[in-house]
């Protein structure tokens, strides 16, 4: 399980201001900091306030790549912006994200195939996020089929079963965990899985505690990646032993340090 660092996002004021002023400083600072803390990918989102997302995304990709060697996760609902970013990515990137909506999947899967990109597919469609496991799995199957139809290796697909805040939809925690388990049964090799981790704790007290307990539970159900706070040291301290306990890493006394250093 690896962390996709969430911090370079126009939702944060410092990043929004940096994009507006074309000041690479804060973006590059967060790129370096997240990489040092063990992030495996950097999520880039220009945010809601930007007038033209295409040049903003291109700028964000360029300045981030100047500061970090990590692969990027291009996060936008504007697919022109994602494509503009993919054009200049020096490493195969991840596309964040596509719902099960036909014309959107057509465009994103074709784009992923031509840029060798990975895809985050969401188990939601025009009608929203389903509440039960079966409906989520039905949507996951559609994502897998599209991957196959575009001859994209299945392990380039990261399915996100969509967590909802625990204080609002408490029943969704178990549903997401069960969905993660069942996604792993859909194909051989199975698709990968990811979560927008911080969503689980929106509006709660002690958010970090909820995030790290949930990520460990999700790892036991087959979670491969999480978009989250790479600079949360306590999160790394929880993920490192979980990787050992799940036999993903070979134990040694410095296991926490090793995880922080290599970010996997």
């Amino acid at each position, binding site marked *: 399980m690896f962390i996709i660092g969430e911090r370079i996002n126009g939702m944060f004021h410092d990043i929004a201001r940096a994009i507006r002023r074309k000041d690479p400083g804060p973006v590059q600072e967060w790129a370096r900091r997240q990489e040092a803390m063990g992030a495996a990918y950097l999520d880039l989102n220009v945010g809601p306030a930007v007038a033209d997302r295409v040049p903003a995304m291109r700028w964000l990709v360029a300045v981030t790549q100047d500061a970090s060697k990590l692969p990027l996760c291009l996060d936008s609902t504007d697919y022109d912006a994602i494509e503009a970013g993919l054009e200049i990515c020096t490493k195969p990137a991840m596309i964040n994200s596509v719902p099960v909506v036909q014309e959107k999947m057509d465009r994103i899967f074709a784009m992923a195939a031509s840029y060798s990109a990975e895809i985050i597919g969401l188990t939601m469609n025009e009608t929203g996020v389903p509440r039960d496991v079966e409906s989520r799995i039905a949507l996951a199957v559609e994502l897998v089929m599209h991957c196959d139809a575009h001859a994209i290796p299945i392990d380039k697909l990261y399915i996100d079963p969509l967590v909802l805040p625990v204080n609002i939809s408490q029943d969704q925690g178990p549903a997401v965990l069960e969905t993660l388990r069942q996604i792993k049964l859909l194909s051989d090799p199975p698709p990968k899985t990811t979560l927008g981790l911080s969503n689980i704790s929106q509006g709660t007290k002690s958010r970090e505690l909820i995030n790290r307990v949930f990520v460990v539970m999700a790892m036991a159900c087959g979670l491969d990646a999480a978009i989250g706070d790479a600079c949360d040291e306590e999160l790394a301290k929880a993920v490192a032993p979980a990787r050992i306990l799940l036999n993903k890493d*070979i134990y040694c*006394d*410095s296991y926490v340090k090793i995880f922080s250093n290599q970010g996997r």
Partner: protein
Amino acid sequence: MGKRGKGEEQITVEIYKEKHRSQVREVVLGAAGGGGGTRSHTIKVGGETTLPFLHFEGEIPNRPVIAMEVWDMVPADWPDNLKAFFSDVYSDPAAWAKKCVDLYGADLVALRFKSADPEIRDASAKDCTAALKKVLAAVGVPLIVYGCGKGDKDNEIMGALAEAAEGENLLLGVAEPDNYKSLAAAAMAYRHSIIAQSPIDINIAKQLNILISEMSSSLFERIVIDPTVAALGYGLEYSYSIMERIRFGALSGDRILAMPMIGNVGNEVWSKKEATGSADEYPGWGEQPERSLAWEAVTATALLQAGMDILVMRHPHAAALVKQSIDELMRDHNP
């Protein structure tokens, strides 16, 4: 599979290939003129992208190599059938090393400073460096240098040996979890490689590599893992499974374990009764001379299959048998 008749369809069998995402680090042993040493050539070990000898699946760019063991004193407890090969050169480690290379085709020489042992001769660092210099002058192959096995004394002599051979890129042994700092410092200061030895324990193997990497990230690139091997009949299968796990770890992206491996085969085998006991003592076991060399050869070839990159051996005929086995396993793939 039956014979195929005329007109029968041929079935294509697709061989399943494991896709590994990483590879074993390549380590260079020795340094020639251009690299600041005096070796006639260097030897590369490691670099595998697949499990041992699965040529169809990945690359095995470097063949496993055999180092023959040379002592700086007469090995009193070696049995006669082993001693006989070296009786003319025992008094002179340089001549002994030369015989191993010229006559027996050793890829490397593993020089063991047994005489430094305080309970044997307590030879001084000065005596040891003099012997090392003679061996370096006598042979062109890269050298492995072992101390006497007593930690405190080895800390004394290994620094001096490292300094005397500055730039030769010796493979210095052995660093252990509770005694690695002075050897690592010597290897760093005088540009040598290092053997990191762990007691048949993958967790300790990994931790020791981390400890060495914390001293020097460049020395980390020059570590060879000694997972500690056992002779056939004495836990060979434990060594085998630890080596397998180390190699699986390396191939699946654990860079802390992605090192070539070395095994002290001769040292293990020739202390066991299966190698030394006479036919009178153990009727039914066969004659000691044949049995002992077979014991060393079989132990070594089993370890090859677990991913051993450097085999340290004693009996010239056992070494020749293993070399023949390596030739066959690397046929058409010789780098």
